């Protein structure tokens, strides 16, 4: 549990962080809350030669009402997302889901930007923001661009971020009173989900995304399409895994995972429809 040797620099602002990453090249990595990166380094599954610590870039720690959406700075901790009054009012699904990330220690350290940039299909908030139709703002040496969540996740721990780009803001549309549900199925309270479902339904529309049902967070488009076409919740839920490619692991076989997704999507939609 001793990582390989590395250098450490601390950035004071987003601009400085991007320039530092640029200077140190491919072997450098941003360090936000460190709760995904440091475990990998301790197991020597990752050995960046330089860490650019953005944990204290305080101008990226905010939650703001921006009219039709809520803007969240990438360095906002899970605990702040969970307890935010603004989010509880306008995007209650996200605030609620953030309360299911790990344990209180993890939530006080880990950041929303970190979990999205890490793009772990088993993490709760990438799928939740995907279900909500979020947009991610990233900043690189050549300026700023926006990436829709639906275009962001490209493979296992792979995203549309370039190595010298930094995720700076997450924009989540207001839910406008839609019903919602977050179903996290795991064996121990602090664990990642075996299967998770983030879902909302309202105004004739819906969004359903799956945690840990493939190499990326999965948008269950077939379910929403079925609902839009008038299918019952029970029938739509049968399509839960239609867009997924579930893998087997120590906690679940592929068949069981597929079955769980159907059960949990049904339960989520039942809850969101009330």
């Amino acid at each position: 549990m001793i990582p390989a040797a590395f250098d450490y620099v601390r950035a004071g602002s987003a601009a400085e962080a991007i320039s530092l990453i640029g200077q140190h090249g491919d072997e450098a990595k941003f360090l936000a809350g460190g709760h995904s990166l440091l475990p990998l380094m301790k197991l020597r599954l990752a050995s960046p030669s330089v860490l650019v610590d953005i944990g204290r870039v305080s101008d990226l720690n905010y939650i703001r009402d921006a009219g039709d959406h809520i803007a969240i700075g990438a360095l906002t901790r899970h605990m702040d997302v969970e307890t935010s009054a603004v989010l509880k009012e306008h995007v209650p699904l996200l605030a609620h889901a953030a309360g299911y990330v790990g344990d209180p220690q993890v939530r006080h350290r880990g950041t929303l930007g970190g979990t999205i940039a890490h793009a772990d299909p088993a993490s709760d908030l990438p799928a939740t923001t995907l279900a909500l139709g979020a947009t991610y703002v990233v900043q690189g040496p050549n300026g700023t661009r926006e990436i829709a969540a639906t275009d962001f996740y490209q493979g296992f721990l792979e995203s549309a971020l370039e190595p010298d780009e930094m995720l700076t803001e997450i924009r989540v549309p207001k839910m406008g009173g839609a019903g919602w549900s977050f179903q996290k199925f795991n064996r121990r309270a602090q664990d990642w989900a075996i299967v998770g479902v983030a879902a909302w339904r309202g105004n004739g529309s819906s969004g359903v995304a799956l945690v840990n049902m493939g190499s990326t967070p999965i948008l269950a488009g077939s379910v929403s399409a079925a609902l839009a076409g008038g299918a019952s919740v029970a029938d739509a839920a049968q399509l839960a895994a239609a867009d997924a490619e579930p893998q087997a692991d120590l906690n679940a076989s592929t068949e069981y995972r597929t079955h769980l997704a159907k059960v949990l999507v049904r339960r989520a939609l039942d809850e969101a429809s009330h």
Partner: protein
Amino acid sequence: MTVTDDRPAAVLGSRLLRREDPALLTGEAKYTNDLQLPGALHLALARSPYAHARIISIDLGAALAAPGVVAAYTGADLTDLWAAPMPCAWPVTADMKNPAHYPVAVGKAAYVGDAVAVVLATSDAAARDAIELIDVRYEPLAAVVDLEDALSDRVVIHDELGTNKSYQWDLKIEDHEGAIDEAFAAAAYTVHDRYVQQRLLPMAMEPRAVAAVPQPFGGDITLYSSTQVPHILKIMSAITLGIPEHQLRVTTPSVGGGFGSKLNVYAEELLCLALARKHKVPVRWNEERGENAVATIHGRGQIQHMELAADAQGKITAVRVRILGDMGAYLQLVTPGIPLLGAFLYAGVYDIPLYDFSCTSVFTTLTPTDAYRGAGRPEATYAIERAVDSLARKMGIDPMELRKRNFIQKEQFPYTAMTGLTYDSGDHLAAAEMAAGLADYEGVRARQATQNVAGATKRIGIGQASYFEMCGLAPSRVLASLNYSAGGWEAATVRVLPTNKIQVVTGTAPHGQGHETSWSMIVADKLGVAPEDVDVLHSDTAIAPLGLDTYGSRSLPVGGVAIAMACDKVIDKAKKIAAHQLEASEDDLEFAGGTFTVKGSPDKAMPLAAIAFAAFTAHDLPDGLEPNLEAHVTYDPPNFSWPFGTHICTVEVDVETGHVQVLQYVAVDDCGNQVNPMIVEGQVHGGVIQGLAQALFEEAVYDTEGNLKNASLAEYLVPAASDVPSLTLGHTITPSPTNQLGVKGIGEAGTIGAAPAVINAVVDALSGLGVTEMMMPASPNTVWNALQAAQNAHSQTTAQNGATK
């Protein structure tokens, strides 16, 4: 009317807070790895990534050239350092096969994690970096993971043995030849179940840590280790290294748990000792968590075939047990004896006349197994308690009722079992009835009837386990009959200092149990002093040279009783001094509240404090009496201690997801008199959760190549507080008749009762859907699989019935 009582409240039986806790809770406690050892070299071990492989070559060149590296060795380089292979103290049969096992493998690696080379460097980081530079060429061989496959000898692991079978051990008691077969033939009901005791990782909070510190002159060496067994470690290290035992001192700073995993003599302890002597500097090693998962022993690992025969009323007439035990790659300190610690308990708490037990143990290419909380007894209890539930299901009667028909009755104690052991005391019916009351057994059955209906998503189940535990290891003569290489006595010294403060020296080696608190309470009660005036010294062979350490729920019923006996000896001597100075006859003195008084003349009195000082000055002692007030006792118990109890678990199973929710857990344990009920509760809490963890969460999962798939705490599911129910505890008190304190062990009881109670509850919840089998851990996926299998079996029968119509 009010009764005033100005005597101090009794210490024994009070909920005194643990004196150990302030240091532990504030982080002040010092563990082995906290030791400051200037100039120490750090040991790191290169471990085999293969479960079974020939070592073709090892190139240490790059490691030796790495910064901070002082030395590097292969197993072959070190053979001169060993006078004997690593010890196995329990050759259970005369023909037991035991492959020579050295701290670093030579020629062949036999499990993932087997050490193949070592590095010494000036820092832990440098040593671990250098390990990655060691170039080992292996010829991988086929792994042996499955026990039945191991028994087939398809792949023989230890060439020199010619077989993977280590031993077969039988315990057959029949009143005449063929009686058991007849009992099965004549039975109205029989059960034949197969259970699997999965491998478990003990996961003590503090991984192992070792430091060996040679003295600059004279050859003495001190070994610090996070161990449960400093005394055994000292003897075995002296033998293995061929060094004079009197020049070796073993001591343990605070030890962060063991659960049996630190009841051993490990390669790293021997390596630190040998290399510290060789390099003449301190050598230390600190285990990483992932290393702990493969290099520290595992628990359980058995396949059990359990058969019961019963008459039409459900009276069990015979039990037949066949065990296949997983030794792992080598025999560690007591590996082969673990399944046999349960050998006598497969009849559980029942009056069963015929008994037939046989255990065959095999080598696999996996981490060695050894003692893990309960060691053999949870396995036995699981098998009999699940089999009793199976029998009840076959008969269509309530399992509680079936148990009542078979319990050994209170009047039958002391009860000589067909295995030859004497159960000294017990009242199973009382424990079961108290547990049933606390669990609202009838109420749950009523709820079950309304809730477990066709189509219900959530089904309720209630499960019971009644257990007898054979612990308090152990009468030395019985250990001799089991071929164990040591005795089971315990030593104690009680020393009254001149100022009437007390020093107790114990041979027990606490690592979380609170002995300092409990032992001080025993002495306070005996000598009439305050517990805080009693200091308890332990876990240092220079201070407590005699002892057999802490395991097998032995410390209180053996070590604590030894202390009480030493107190009696102190009182006897003090009485002589008091009689002399008070000019009274010893027979006329009575001792209470720390003072001797002459019967009938309460003004003639002498407190222990005055006697202690008189014994120290020795100015005026009776002729022939030695100065000082001190007594030593070595106590060999006449029998095991026999705690018992009933646990009842209520669960709700989500049949869609397979998730098991424990609604209530009741544990009624009888450990005789309780020195400190708060500490008893702590032991039961931890024990029950560990047993529940085996039932629902934990398993060391191997792939077919012999790789441990869950070697981290992210994947090996030790439940946290949020994942387990709060427990409802009850106690009956049946004092042990074999020791003056009336105490029995309680360290393992919780673990023994929990796994069968939980699994019986899960099966009970689902039996209406045709589920009769359940593997541990009953994970959601496993439960779902069982439901699928039951459903498929059901639809097949329905289809077949349809076809024959």
